[in-house]
């Protein structure tokens, strides 16, 4: 597996609380992505990053913010979690050389009560 880890792997929280998910890579890849996976919707892009301090919105960015202060870490923050944000969140990384393959983390299951 590519050197990509997500934390926490499981989290239960209450509506209105802030939540931060962390994606850490050891590959020094330029691109990092956050997706959410929901039944019937597949994977939807939340935000992505193309370098330190360089981020852009995806398809479903409302209610989410991200930060990338160093190459290896990409943080996803839910400022005030809602029940609609209950999901499995996947981080992915991608090199800007080679075949452009995405490498995925194991996922973080978030439940908002």
């Amino acid at each position, binding site marked *: 597996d590519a050197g990509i880890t997500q934390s926490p792997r499981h989290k239960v929280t209450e509506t209105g609380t802030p939540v931060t998910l962390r994606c850490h890579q050891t590959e020094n890849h330029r691109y990092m992505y956050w997706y959410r996976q929901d039944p019937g919707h597949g*994977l939807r892009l939340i935000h992505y990053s*193309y370098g330190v301090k360089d981020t852009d919105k995806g398809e479903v960015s409302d209610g989410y913010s991200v930060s990338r202060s160093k190459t290896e870490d990409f943080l996803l923050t839910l400022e005030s979690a809602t029940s609609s944000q209950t999901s499995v969140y996947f981080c992915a990384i991608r090199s800007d050389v080679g075949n452009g393959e995405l490498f995925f983390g194991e996922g973080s299951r978030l439940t908002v009560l």
Partner: protein
Amino acid sequence: AQRVTQPEKLLSVFKGAPVELKCNYSYSGSPELFWYVQYSRQRLQLLLRHISRESIKGFTADLNKGETSFHLKKPFAQEEDSAMYYCALSIFNKFYFGSGTKLNVKP
């Protein structure tokens, strides 16, 4: 707007039968298309990409620009092919995924 459409949520076939997982995309430029697979309790991983025109685990996919399709095919399904399959479209480094098709290969 839905950029990638996978019309089948579930596809059940018997072992040895041919299988085709459908994928249609919406993009007017030159598409970069992929198939990703997620086996039970494993990470999502790349199965194949259209540029390489390779066959992985017996699967092939042909890009049809006229029909804007990138269907995944395998002539003889195996039980170990049972998994969730996602078609993906890359546009300017953003990857858009379909809703996925769960393939169930019965013995």
